[in-house]
């Protein structure tokens, strides 16, 4: 624990901390470009220079200097001021003065720091060097003349994303950052380099020239593109969400977000349902809310009613639907649209128990039927961290590139009953062994076999539960807590042939599943669910309602409303409240707050943000498993109706998954 003084303030920092961190601990702001908390230290921008005693009589780069006992740091001396001005002047020598047409303007580190630490003018009268644009794929727009070679993007690609495709070529003044041969970067996390770039060299291609940061309304929200529950900030102007950026939450997404999280938002203004529709003579026709409600009432379903929750819905929606269905006398609720029927009697047995942050500390991992990279990209980066710390990863399933070394055992579930000796040995030695069961494994029926491994592999120890199920739907854990799971799954619901079925944004239900039922689609996009509906009630997307979501580790999180739903669309819970009147089973809440109180009364864990506690009491299931695994996600970029409506995701899919090439028009 070195003790040192910064500008006369005494601070004590943990061993291994840098001088820069010590300065921050003392409350001093150190300007920096290349240094980033979550990346390795490069020390090449020289902006963080400070004066250090004892040491040579010259400024030192604080980001790369270990803090030591009895150091005296000055961040306010004449030497430091001059050093910063000098570095800033050099950085600006080749940086174009194009802030007025630069998308980074207003949120640019270089702008801010040149105002705070730079000289007022430049002495450089010569020509600036220019660098040609580099193609980096459908997400990242480049203006490389603006690049200051901090190499954050290079380090991010190598260290976090695990795709070594960005590098710095040539040298000295001619150094250029580029993707390999200017091909698209094949990472589902490539959008993060836009946030990392301290200047306007890498900007967001879909968001190019859309808005200035100061015009945007910023709303904290929770992402629904996967079950990770990425904390996002929705930037909106008027009625449109223009971009989604990650918020820092070290327990969930650190400060990253997947490309789908960031860029599917343009799908929120396309293919939207903004009016109620009813099916007359086989065709969907526009209708009023009253007509639509009356048609539903005319079904006279009695107690023969079911609700199927989609992947993106919030807990409030599911609770309102549950209250209505329950009021009508039915308990047919299901959220696993594609037909999964794993046992949900114990929520801990279907939870990501080691937590997202905790999986980083695992030292032996067995992945059963999960393409983690696509099912939960931000869990994958955590596993990658664990691997870097020395964890060994084994996997059962078709081989895919997970960005870290994996020992593929084969694609046969019977391996679970007969694990190779190497796996047993590794797990026997491990302190924090973990197993991850993904959607492919659940579908293939590996739940019993993996639960049977909990004992032999020693997954549960003091303060550690290494049994993890990796869900892919944002609504899944919330749905399971609200009882959206029938023994036998959706097939059992269909077998009861309910007269009336509510599809809560459920777009993955095959259309012959409820062939004889009257289907009411309550959702926001004209996708597969709406196409098969008899009545469509336009509802709000995740950006348009305040909602509670439970992520795959059972973390209850709440997001706020950024914009209003388009046209006649209403928030989902309000639709059910209004419909309940018409059906004669009036729901006992008139406001969202009242609904939340009722929900907290029914499921107390949903009333409190943070990790929900589940008691570990796994069901006794048949441990036999055999057969092959297929991954459920065929196309990472097109997994839900919002993404399918997004032009950006369409382009990503075509280019990165299907290999179409998009020649850039010469500018």
């Amino acid at each position, binding site marked *: 624990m070195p003790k040192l003084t910064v500008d006369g303030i005494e601070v004590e920092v943990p061993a291994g901390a840098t001088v820069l961190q010590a300065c921050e601990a003392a409350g001093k702001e150190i300007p920096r470009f290349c240094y980033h908390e979550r990346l390795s230290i490069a020390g090449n921008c020289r902006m963080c220079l400070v004066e250090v005693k004892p040491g040579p009589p010259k400024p030192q780069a604080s980001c790369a200097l270990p803090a030591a006992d009895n150091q005296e740091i000055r961040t306010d001396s004449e030497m430091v001021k001059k050093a910063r001005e000098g570095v800033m002047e050099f950085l600006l020598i080749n940086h174009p003065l194009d802030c007025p047409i630069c998308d980074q303007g207003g949120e640019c580190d270089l702008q801010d720091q040149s105002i705070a630490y730079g000289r007022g003018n430049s002495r450089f009268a010569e020509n600036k060097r220019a660098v040609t644009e580099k193609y980096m794929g459908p997400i990242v727009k480049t203006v490389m003349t603006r690049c200051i070679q901090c190499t954050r993007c290079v380090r991010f690609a190598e260290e976090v994303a695990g795709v*070594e*495709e960005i590098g710095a*070529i040539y040298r000295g003044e*001619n150094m250029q950052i580029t*993707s*390999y*041969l200017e091909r698209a970067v094949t990472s589902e996390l490539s959008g993060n380099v836009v946030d990392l770039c301290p200047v306007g060299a890498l900007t967001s291609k879909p968001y190019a020239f859309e808005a200035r940061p100061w015009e945007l309304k910023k709303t904290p929200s929770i992402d629904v593109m996967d079950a990770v529950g990425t904390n996002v900030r929705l930037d909106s102007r008027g009625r449109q969400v223009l971009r989604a950026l990650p918020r820092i939450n070290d327990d969930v997404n650190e400060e990253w977000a997947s490309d789908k999280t960031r860029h599917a938002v343009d799908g929120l203004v396309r293919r939207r349902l903004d009016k109620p529709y009813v099916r007359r003579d086989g065709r969907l026709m526009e209708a009023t809310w009253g007509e639509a409600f009356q048609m539903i009432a005319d079904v006279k379903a009695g107690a023969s009613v079911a609700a199927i929750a989609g992947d993106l819905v919030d807990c409030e929606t599911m609770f309102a639907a549950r209250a209505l269905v329950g009021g009508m006398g039915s308990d047919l609720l299901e959220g696993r649209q594609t037909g999964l029927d794993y046992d949900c009697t114990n929520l801990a047995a279907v939870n990501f128990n080691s937590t997202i942050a905790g999986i980083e500390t695992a030292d032996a991992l067995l992945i059963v039927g999960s393409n983690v990279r696509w099912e939960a990209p931000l869990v994958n980066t955590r596993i990658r961290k664990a691997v870097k710390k020395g964890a060994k990863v084994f996997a059962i399933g078709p081989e895919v590139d997970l960005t870290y070394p994996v020992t593929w055992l084969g694609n046969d579930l019977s391996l679970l009953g007969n694990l190779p000796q190497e796996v047993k040995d590794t797990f026997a030695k491990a302190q924090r062994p973990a197993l991850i069961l993904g959607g492919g494994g659940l579908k293939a029926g590996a739940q019993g076999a993996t639960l049977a491994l909990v004992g032999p592999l020693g997954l549960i120890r003091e303060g550690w539960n290494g049994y993890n199920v990796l869900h892919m739907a944002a609504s899944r854990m919330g749905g399971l807590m609200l009882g959206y799971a029938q023994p036998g799954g959706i097939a059992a619901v269909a077998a009861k042939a309910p007269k009336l079925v509510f599809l809560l944004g459920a777009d993955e239900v095959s259309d012959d599943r409820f062939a004889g039922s009257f289907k009411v689609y309550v959702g926001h996009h004209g996708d597969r669910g709406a196409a098969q509906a008899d009545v469509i009630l336009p509802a709000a997307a995740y950006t348009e309602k305040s909602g509670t979501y439970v992520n795959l580790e059972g973390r209850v999180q709440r997001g706020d409303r950024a914009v209003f739903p388009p046209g006649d669309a209403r928030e989902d819970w309000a639709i059910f409240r209004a419909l309940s009147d018409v059906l004669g089973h009036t729901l006992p809440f008139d406001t969202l707050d009242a609904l939340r109180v009722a929900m907290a009364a029914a499921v107390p864990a949903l009333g409190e943000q943070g990790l929900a506690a589940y008691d570990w009491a796994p069901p006794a299931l048949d441990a036999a498993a055999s057969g092959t695994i297929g991954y459920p996600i065929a196309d990472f970029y097109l997994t839900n109706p919002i993404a399918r409506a997004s032009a950006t995701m369409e382009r990503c899919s075509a280019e990165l998954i299907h290999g179409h090439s998009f020649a850039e028009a010469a500018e």
Partner: protein
Amino acid sequence: MADAAHIPDEAETRARWGDFAWSEVNEARAKEIIGRYPPGRQHSAIMPLLDLAQRQVGAETNTQGWLPVPVIEFVAKQIDMPYIRAFEVATFYTMYNLAPVGRYHVQVCGTTPCMLRGSDDVLSACYKKGLKKGHTTPDGLFTLTEVECLGACANAPMVQINDDNYEDLTFETTTAVLEALARGETPKAGPQIDRQTSCPEGGPSTLKEMVAENHDYRGEWA
């Protein structure tokens, strides 16, 4: 880099070099080079391997050799290195040619010491022989590049032609070297005047007494 040579189109180099593989001799040498580094550190072999590959390309095309992208990828694959990392190395060091060069790659040093000692004459000798900066002569014999200091300032001006330095040049000696190369001869490398490496011209100029015996200068210091 206005005078940089144009790197051939990717499709073209892929068609020509896509099936690059080590020759039998180089296969063994590559293995030996990789063997120099401890297990897990094979990436360190990238520089000698790229050099070896460039020489093999040179041998196959009867030039000094260059590194087409497929060849860089071949080398990177052999040591399990991401392509971009190998590409970074190949673009960083100037001794790797990223574009085809001629039989002789004439690198004329134009940095201050050489310039003061007459590198302009050396360059004009090259121009006179039909060489043009950044270009290969039509007969495929010479490629001219002006480079920065090559570290032989004591023998300025100098040129580096493939693996040899030719030093202490004048207009005439440069012409002579180029003509000899054109004839297929190998001119004597090193200083082109009567001088051994960087020793003083015409014998020692200082500490002359030391030539014959271990002279004690201390008494002469004022």
